[in-house]
């Protein structure tokens, strides 16, 4: 797709560009720059070396021709800021300083254009004078209020045409009969200039438009096109052509049909610490090493280092580091390590040959749409193979007529795992193809069961048809009317104003992808800022029903809301008072287990049955002393788990007990009981008071986030979120002191 490009931006920097026009809050130049920066940063983001750009200013204070023109005569007020080159971030930053309105109105746009054409010519001509394959473009942005010497217009236009340079002229407040814009009280110079530039565009087969149109289009996300690359070239076969005479075999190629476009990913960096003497300007360090992982300025790339450990056979309960060359490849079978020597590496691989073999056919209407589990592919006949074209066409139409899909086994490459694909005919006005999507194997299905939605079945097996969880006739009717009222299949309008599907795939743009691209580009030209811009409106267009449609369906919406009678459950009413025994879960029979046990007022904590007895003890009482006593016993048990742990053997139990205690105490709204406990536990662990080095236990508590209960978690807590976060962090200091 992407060939070589040479683009020159010719920008009007005249004094009059610093003015603001009626209805705009920015100067003409800043407005024009919105467009220029967007175009430049979009190109920079692709990182393509073959996309070269240049920026030329006219009506500038200084004249600078960079040696492009031999003689400055006639080129006064033209400034070639950058020759044609691949732009980098530093070029953008450098240019930003320079693109300011000048103090003059002297300088001719046609001179700048002549310089630009020479620039392009020089950069896109081969050694032997042949014209290289390039997309050549000049984009001129001006308010048309300078002086234009139109004497050479015809020569310049034919030069551009002859060199295949596409000229786009974007004028600030130029009249746009199509868009219906007309500037009032336009002065005569501008009127004349507009006409001159229009002639230029016409004579060079260029484009002439008003800037507002171009700026409007900036918000429409641009879609990256990818060249189709086949990922399977082989045969589509029905039957076994090795052992049987009569088979159906077609040479085909398989290309992606859908493929999720991924947003760019961020890499990890760390601030340099070796800046030493004085942190130099970031430009200094940013171009020496142009490696991929290189980050300029005060950031350094991050490398990952892996360390491998095994249980130390000589010292049970401890680990030892092992070197990579002591390790071999293997797999886990359950918890058994199966080691496979290098030479046996292929033994676990199923040997397969590439194929697309038809297993059978299914009826389209009996196929469950949700089974398709992958992106889709096109299957088309081998290029320039007449027989394959005719045969595949017959197959596609036969499937279509029979309303059937094919089921086939696909091995795209030798020794790749076979997959089962569904073959679906797709016949469009301008092409036809077979589409494939992957289907699940037996192992890919999770057989969870869910109760029916249209009836209730009791524990005893009785079927109930009236129930508060089943819709009544009123709700069914309301839903029926609502769904029909909100139909989108003809809500859209095509270019001719005819009804068409609303929210077609090609009208929707990946919000996150374009949001991230947008913000990176924005950030490239905005080094200092107070807040990030919000996403362009077009990315949010389909996040809610269209307002017109909702307005039309107001009646149906209201009826549905009333008929549904949905109530939001208020945030849980927690607290001691609410936790009565009656609320406890009951077994299937509905038996009140607590009553059976005589509604004990005090349950003793049993260390052999710690968690259940702790929960039961809390459930039985609402006396604060009793709760504290139960917590104390938990605390003792937890310490015992830790201090008697051989290696890490008791840590899991301790951690689970801590979790239960934290959850239960939070629910009782007595966070202080837990917070006191966990503070003391941390001190004891890090202070080495639990028989040895138990820091590992602390790391687990920290990793599980079982620290202080803060205000966010329980309103009764006096611990702020910052304090709670600090509680985890403080350990680093402790640990470093330890080390």
């Amino acid at each position, binding site marked *: 797709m992407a060939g070589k490009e040479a683009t020159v931006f010719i920008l009007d920097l005249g004094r009059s560009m610093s003015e603001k026009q009626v209805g705009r809050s920015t100067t003409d130049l800043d407005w024009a720059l919105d467009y220029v920066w967007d175009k430049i940063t979009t190109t920079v983001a692709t990182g393509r070396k073959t996309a070269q750009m240049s920026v030329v200013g006219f009506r500038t204070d200084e004249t600078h021709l960079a040696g492009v023109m031999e003689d400055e005569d006639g080129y006064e007020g033209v400034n070639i800021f950058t020759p044609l080159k691949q732009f980098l971030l530093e070029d953008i930053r450098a240019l930003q300083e320079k693109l300011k309105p000048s103090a003059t109105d002297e300088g001719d746009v046609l001179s700048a254009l002549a310089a630009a054409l020479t620039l392009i010519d020089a950069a896109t001509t081969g050694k032997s004078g042949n014209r290289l394959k390039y997309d050549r473009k000049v984009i001129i942005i001006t308010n048309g209020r300078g002086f234009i010497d139109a004497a050479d217009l015809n020569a310049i236009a034919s030069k551009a045409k002859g060199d295949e340079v596409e000229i786009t002229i974007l004028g600030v407040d130029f009249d746009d009969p199509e868009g219906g814009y007309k500037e009032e009280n336009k002065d005569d110079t501008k009127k004349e200039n507009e006409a001159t530039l229009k002639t230029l565009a016409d004579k060079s087969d260029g484009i002439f438009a008003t800037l507002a149109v171009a700026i409007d289009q900036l918000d429409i*996300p641009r879609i990256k096109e990818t060249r189709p690359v086949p990922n399977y070239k082989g045969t589509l076969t029905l039957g076994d052509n090795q052992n049987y005479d009569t088979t159906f075999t077609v040479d085909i190629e398989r290309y992606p049909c859908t493929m999720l476009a991924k947003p760019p990913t961020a890499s990890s960096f760390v601030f340099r610490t070796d800046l030493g003497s004085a942190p130099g300007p970031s430009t200094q360090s940013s171009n020496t090493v142009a490696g991929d992982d290189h980050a300029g300025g005060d950031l350094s790339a991050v490398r990952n280092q892996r*360390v491998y450990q095994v249980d130390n056979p000589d010292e049970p309960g401890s680990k030892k580091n092992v070197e990579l060359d002591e390790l071999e490849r293997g797999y886990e079978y359950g918890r058994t390590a199966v080691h496979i020597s290098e030479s046996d590496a292929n033994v676990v691989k199923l040997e397969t040959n590439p194929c697309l073999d038809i*297993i059978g056919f299914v009826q389209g209407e009996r196929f469950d749409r*949700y089974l398709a589990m992958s992106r889709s592919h096109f299957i088309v006949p081998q290029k320039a193979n007449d027989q394959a074209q005719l045969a595949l066409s*017959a197959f596609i139409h036969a499937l279509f007529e029979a309303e059937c899909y094919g089921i086939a086994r696909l091995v795209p490459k030798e020794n790749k*795992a076979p997959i089962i694909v569904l073959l679906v005919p797709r016949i469009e006005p301008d092409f036809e193809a077979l589409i494939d999507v992957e289907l699940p194997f037996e192992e890919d299905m999770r057989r969870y069961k869910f109760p029916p939605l249209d009836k209730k079945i009791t524990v005893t097996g009785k079927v109930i048809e009236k129930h508060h969880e089943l819709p009544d006739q009123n709700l069914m009717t309301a839903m029926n009317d609502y769904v029909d009222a909100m139909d989108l299949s003809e809500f859209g309008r095509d270019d001719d104003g005819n009804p068409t599907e609303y929210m077609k795939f090609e009208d929707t743009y990946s919000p996150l992808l374009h949001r991230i691209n947008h913000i990176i580009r924005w950030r490239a030209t905005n080094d200092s800022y107070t807040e990030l811009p919000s996403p362009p409106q077009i990315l949010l267009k389909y*996040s809610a029903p269209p307002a017109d449609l909702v307005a039309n369906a107001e009646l149906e919406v209201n009826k549905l809301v009333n008929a549904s009678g949905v109530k939001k459950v208020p945030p849980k009413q927690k607290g001691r008072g609410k936790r009565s025994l009656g609320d406890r879960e*009951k077994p299937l029979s509905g038996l009140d287990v607590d009553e059976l046990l005589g509604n004990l007022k005090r349950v003793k904590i049993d260390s052999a049955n710690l968690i*259940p007895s702790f929960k039961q003890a809390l459930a039985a009482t609402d006396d604060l002393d009793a709760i504290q006593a139960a917590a104390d016993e938990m605390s003792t048990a937890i310490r015992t788990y830790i201090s008697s742990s051989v290696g890490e053997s008791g840590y899991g139990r301790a951690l689970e007990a801590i979790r239960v205690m934290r959850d239960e105490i939070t629910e009782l709204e007595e966070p202080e009981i837990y917070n006191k406990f966990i503070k003391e536990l941390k001190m004891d662990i890090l202070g080495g008071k639990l028989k040895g080095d138990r820091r590992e236990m602390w790391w687990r508590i920290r990793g599980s986030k079982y620290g202080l209960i803060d205000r966010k978690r329980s309103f009764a807590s006096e611990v702020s979120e910052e304090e709670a976060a600090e509680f985890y962090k403080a350990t680093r200091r402790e640990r470093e002191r330890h080390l």
Partner: protein
Amino acid sequence: MAAPEYDNRPGDEEEEEEEELDDSSYKTIKDAVLFAIDVSSTMLQPPPESDDKKADRDSPTSAALKCAYQLMQQRIISNPNDMMGILLFGTEQTELGDGDSTFQHCYLLADLDVPSAQDVKRLRDLVEDEEEAAELLTPAVDPPSIATVLFCANQIFTTKAPNFSSRRLFLVTDNDNPAKIKQDKDTAITRARDLYDLGCTIDLFPISRRGHGFDRSKFYDDLVYPTSPSDPDAPIAISANTKVAQSGDGISLLKQLLSSINSKASPRRALFTLPFEIAPGLRIGVKGYILIKRQEHVKSCYVWVGGEKAQIATGSTSHLADDTARVVEKGELRKAYKFGGDAITFTADELKQIRQAFGDPVIRIVGFKPLDMAPLWANTGKATFIYPSEADYIGSTRVFSALQQKLLKSKKMAVAWFIARRNAAPVITAIIPAEEKLDENGEQTMPPGLWLVPLPYADDLRQFPEQGDNLKTTDALSDTMRKVIEQLQLPKGAYDPSKYPNPDLQWFYRILQAMALEDEIPEHPDDKTIPKYKQINKRCAPFLEEFGEEFEKEYKLQTVEKRKIISSHAKKRGAAAPEDSKPPAKKRVKKEAPDDGGGVGGLTDEDMAKINDKGAVSKQTVVVLRDFLKARGRDTTGKKPEIAARVQDYLIGKGF
């Protein structure tokens, strides 16, 4: 070194896709299942002799053990990090591993842990070797009470799987009233409550004694809880009520047990809980579940072979600054985007702002369309199942049900804006209704509900590969092909995933198991995805032949016309499409597919063989060799020596 992160209460298994994976994190721990199998004289009683091939031959205990064996092997594949244990109760022998004799007549056959090869072997021996089984499976004179068994399970769960989020006791018994006196029953009820408070679920697999039945209400309804303590507001499946399995009921006891146990094989866990905005001002609560997901085999790992026993080495990663090789704490890391040879940085807060600019997680209906506006070609990935939950909005179920029924009736779908969780990218999704599906025994095979099928954005659509002016079929030609299609319908005209195990996955684990158990390595894979060629030939040959004739006619007609237009060109085409691009369905002699490969892959087999004879294969460029292999559908990856070797292997295979 940075402190390893521990993940002990995973509730967000799927969330990892979004988050950066921390290599140092411990295995994500999931589910622990303890089988408790009753060993009593009735449980050991073999079924009556029968000539029927399908008749039972297993005693209930042995059927239960077989189930456990099968489940163990299956879980090693599907849930490689999950634990499983097997406890026999009522055995003459007592054995709980560490010399503990608190629980008399309880025998811990496999301790609760991630199964090892030894555990599988032990179980297999017991299932396959009757003598060994007979020795162990002797009922005790004075069997333990259910209370004892439950407390024993309590202790096993507490010590072996202390912080697992899902812990389940699978109780297999034929005794519907094991308590002789009320006090025994009360103790059992207390112990069951303890288990519930501990966070463990009891799943009862009842077996009917011959002529006796199994009445849950006598005893077990007081022990079994309808909700799961780890997920209290999950919709209650049709039952905690597993069907009572019984002998001599058409299908074998083993099959019945297997089917009940399989349906509980993996604990159900919601992927997300979200508000579902059906209309402006109308929100209900739903939970999302992943019911379809490609099961992959375990990734290879490093094994340390320096000691007596091979050991898996666990890796941890630390970050180093590239310039100074200084160890960097995770908190110091900054995220930056590469742009124009430089890095563009944002603070953590800004990154959050950028990603979360699209509002809170929600499923919001934008409107409705006919079902066919989500065509299969627009598929981009797997669908997610949603089901109502009353936890946040009372009345969710009835509204959801009304919507599902209306969509089914009108063959419509909703289109919705879907953000699965904070930080997740917004997705446009079709919401497609699904009916409940039952098998012939009335067991649910597909649940009723709605499916979220992600739709593509304009950015996700790839362009159609350019085709020339292709030949097109005629109605007569398509009609002959249609007859073939009608002949080859799969059973019931539908695709049933359960008929197709993943051949690669199965083979991988068969080999791995054989290696782990030091068995002989099997030689032939069982691949159910290979078409039934014989049947295809039998059913379709005459129709294919008819198609072949029609095709020849039509092909000649169309190409003659084409040749008239571009006569010189057609010849060229003939060369570009080699002899081998077979006229479909012509009677032809057996021959291997790309035999003469003339033109397409550059060199012919003969040419390459000649080069090989001169010892000059490695003198060819990689491009030439790759093209040669590619034209023959062979692997073209790797370095030059590997590619050259593959070319030579190919030639040897061809007899050159």
